[in-house]
């Protein structure tokens, strides 16, 4: 199917932008960098829409089932005859869907940044990094080979590292970037080993072949991998779990989530792009990509489910207690991704039972829009207030009406209030959960309520609670272009995304993206929907009563929860735990001893040899006494010794 080859341009254009800006940006494109990369990205966006149209509506469907199409495949690095890393382009429902998501959100962010990052010293570098990220994310999406996934996985990681550390002279930013990279790297180790297990038993690294081999219960590969077991679990479980570990790292699932909140040190548009819409869902995408294999192994799926659910709940609880608006959003992201994860976890492969899968993808889709919208909104707020802290905000609705409106829409969307996008996807997930696993369903429900609570806590704290502040706020800073919400380049994305947040829910998603590619009939069951929606509304009212006006109700609530609140506010001390392990165990108990041993024992031994030789030589210097008589004596001694030796001993 070579007529999809043009898809190759979608990732390559950003790459080109990166190369150009990276090499010459500082010198030649210091001002125009934004325009250039936005333009190139716009092209790829259009291309991806074209691709989507072609795939979904023209030739993607063969007798009712969407095909997996390998548009391109090139052997990049041969390991052994049939194990190799291939570079390629896969076209199937989720990859096309992701193309849309990534390109459009990225485009929005590019546009937004035009205003937001204006006048930055390393403006060009910023756009270079953005393009690099976009390229790697697209490459990740289009991977045909699990090792290709891993490669772009790493690239995504490093570009996120670079973007988080964009304000490189801010120590906190540096620390955050390091943390993000190392934590994800640790997860990737699992991913790598998982790949090796898969590759070893599957005899290939090609995703298609792997799925083929591991989904037919009779294939020798399947038998060998399931029969081989380590520590009681089958190798399949190990492989999948380790791969999921990689996914969990990128998608900030518990316990590998600690990097995400700190990652908010980066510029806000970056958070919108990477840490809300695209990179963090890579984990979900990975699981979805390998879903047929996952579905062959209950254990792995269960792990996915419970990790996802627990993360969703935990994040939601923590989110209620944070005061830094970006951190709140970060935790909400984590919570939403948890949703997607457990949705996958409870799903089966194919048919009606594939609902979870479809729902998760759907939520991924919708979430991308309203969450990036939230972030961009927060961005413009921060851009105006020059602070992330809620206490510095309040009553901004008059100063920035558009932002206010957009933000409200987004909040409603995420809270799952019909008819906003979030409602539909969330409904599907809840339905799936309800059918599969009541416990999960309960958790999901509670989380949903919490979500609407903290989202509106955020909303009210930003736009209401206090009186509209005097212009003093904005008079404080000296940006030339400062009037309210900033330039149109910052407003436009908000508007577009808001539109999406309202609109995308109505897409008949199940027609396009299902676990097996065949369309799936779904319907919103009004009765079923009552409970979640009602809960959300109650939560919203509650937070309104707490935060709409400045009052002490919230403090009372805090007092009620007491210790639990403090724990939640301290993110349940997970960070501290990690710090303890690294600072108190790894460095002093492994690193330093080894470094010491190397200097003193290993090297010391070598030095000892040398010094001993010197000692001996000065110890025996007496032989050379300078007395010729002694010399003669030794001489004769030698003669005697030799004679005795060879006449009596060595006969």
């Amino acid at each position: 199917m070579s007529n999809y080859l043009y898809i190759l341009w979608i990732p390559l254009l950003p790459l080109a932008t990166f190369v150009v800006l990276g090499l010459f940006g500082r010198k030649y494109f210091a001002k125009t960098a934004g325009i250039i990369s936005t333009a190139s990205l716009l092209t790829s966006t259009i291309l991806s829409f074209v691709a989507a149209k072609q795939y979904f509506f023209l030739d993607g469907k063969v007798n009712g089932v969407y095909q997996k199409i390998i548009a391109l495949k090139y052997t990049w690095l041969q390991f052994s005859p049939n194990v190799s890393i291939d570079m390629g382009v896969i076209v199937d429902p989720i990859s096309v869907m992701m193309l849309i998501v990534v390109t459009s959100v990225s485009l929005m962010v590019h546009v937004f940044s035009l205003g937001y990052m204006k006048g930055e010293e390393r403006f060009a570098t910023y756009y270079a990094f953005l393009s690099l990220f976009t390229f790697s994310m697209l490459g990740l999406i289009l991977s045909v080979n699990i090792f290709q996934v891993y490669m772009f996985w790493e690239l995504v990681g490093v570009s996120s590292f670079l973007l988080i550390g964009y304000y490189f002279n801010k120590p906190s930013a540096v620390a955050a970037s390091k943390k993000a990279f190392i934590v994800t790297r640790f997860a990737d180790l699992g991913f790598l080993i998982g790949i090796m297990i898969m590759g070893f038993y599957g005899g290939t690294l090609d995703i298609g072949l792997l799925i083929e081999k591991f989904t037919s219960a009779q294939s020798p590969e399947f038998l060998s991998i399931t029969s081989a077991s380590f520590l009681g679990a089958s190798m399949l479980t190990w492989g999948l779990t380790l791969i999921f570990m990689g996914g969990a790292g990128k998608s900030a699932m518990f316990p590998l989530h600690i990097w995400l909140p700190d990652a908010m040190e980066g510029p806000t548009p970056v958070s919108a792009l990477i840490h809300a819409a695209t990179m963090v869902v890579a984990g979900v995408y990975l699981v979805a990509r390998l879903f047929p294999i996952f579905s062959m192994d209950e254990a792995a799926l269960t792990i996915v489910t419970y990790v996802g659910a627990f993360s969703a709940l935990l994040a939601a609880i923590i989110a209620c207690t944070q005061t830094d608006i970006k951190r709140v959003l970060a935790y909400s992201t984590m919570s939403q991704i948890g949703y997607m994860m457990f949705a996958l976890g409870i799903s089966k492969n194919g048919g009606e039972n594939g609902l979870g899968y479809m729902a998760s993808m759907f939520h991924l889709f919708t979430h991308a829009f309203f969450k990036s919208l939230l972030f961009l909104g927060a961005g413009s707020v921060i851009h105006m207030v020059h602070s992330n802290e809620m206490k510095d905000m309040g009553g901004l609705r008059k100063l920035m009406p558009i932002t206010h409106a957009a933000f409200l829409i987004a909040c409603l969307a995420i809270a799952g209030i019909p008819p906003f996008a979030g409602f539909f996807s969330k409904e599907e997930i809840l339905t799936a959960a309800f059918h599969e696993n009541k416990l999960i369903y309960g958790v999901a429900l509670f989380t949903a309520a919490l979500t609407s609570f903290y989202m509106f806590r955020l909303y009210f704290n930003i736009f209401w609670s206090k009186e509209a502040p005097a212009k003093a706020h904005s008079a404080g800073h000296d940006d030339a272009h400062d009037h309210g919400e900033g330039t149109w380049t910052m407003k436009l994305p908000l508007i577009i995304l808001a539109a999406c947040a309202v609109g995308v829910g109505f897409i008949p998603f199940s027609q396009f993206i299902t676990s097996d590619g065949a369309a799936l009939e779904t319907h919103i069951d009004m009765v079923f929907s009552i409970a979640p929606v009602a809960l959300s509304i109650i939560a919203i009212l509650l937070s309104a009563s707490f935060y709409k006006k400045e009052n002490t109700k919230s403090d009372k609530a805090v007092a009620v929860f007491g210790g639990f609140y403090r724990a939640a506010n301290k993110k349940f001390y997970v960070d501290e735990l990690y710090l303890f392990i690294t600072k108190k165990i790894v460095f002093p108990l492994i690193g330093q001893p080894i470094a010491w041993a190397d200097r003193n024992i290993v090297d010391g031994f070598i030095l000892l040899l040398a010094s001993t030789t010197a000692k001996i030589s000065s110890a025996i210097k007496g032989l050379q006494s300078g007395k010729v008589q002694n010399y003669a004596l030794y001489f004769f001694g030698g003669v005697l010794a030799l004679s005795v030796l060879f006449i009596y001993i060595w006969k």
Partner: protein
Amino acid sequence: MNTSAIIFYAIATLILGAALLAVTTLKIFRSAIWLLFSLVGIAALYFWMQVEFIAAIQIVVYVGGIVVLIIFSIFLTQQSGKEMAKPATSKIIFSALAALLGIAFTFNLINHYGFNTLSSQPFNTSVSEIGTQMLSTTSHGFILPFEVVSMLLLAAMVGCIVIAMKPTSADIVHLNKKED
């Protein structure tokens, strides 16, 4: 046990006794004299072995040459009659031990080997015989060694002269200069 045997043992005692005294007495002049006796004894031994020529050479070269040389050098280097420094007892013990060990070892070997003397051909050592062999180039001729030794003696002579010659003040000066 006939007379010749008795003579031999007498000579042997003379040689060894004199030698022993020569290496132990503390008066350097005396030790020179004892050495003289010991050498004369060896000459006597040669006579006893009926190798008169060697005996004569022994007398001439050693008694007449070396010992005289030694005595002169003693006169040159120190006043006679003065006691020499006594060697350290530890050194005496070790040296004696070494020497005795050596003696024992060699005796033992000689015993085991037991040079049995069977041949009793005449042993012609007439001076003329020696002379002809010394200067003949045919087999059993020792002309080459003879020449070589002459070169050696020349070199030795030159060396002695150069070394023993009292250096003129001039040399001292420039040598000292070189010695910095």
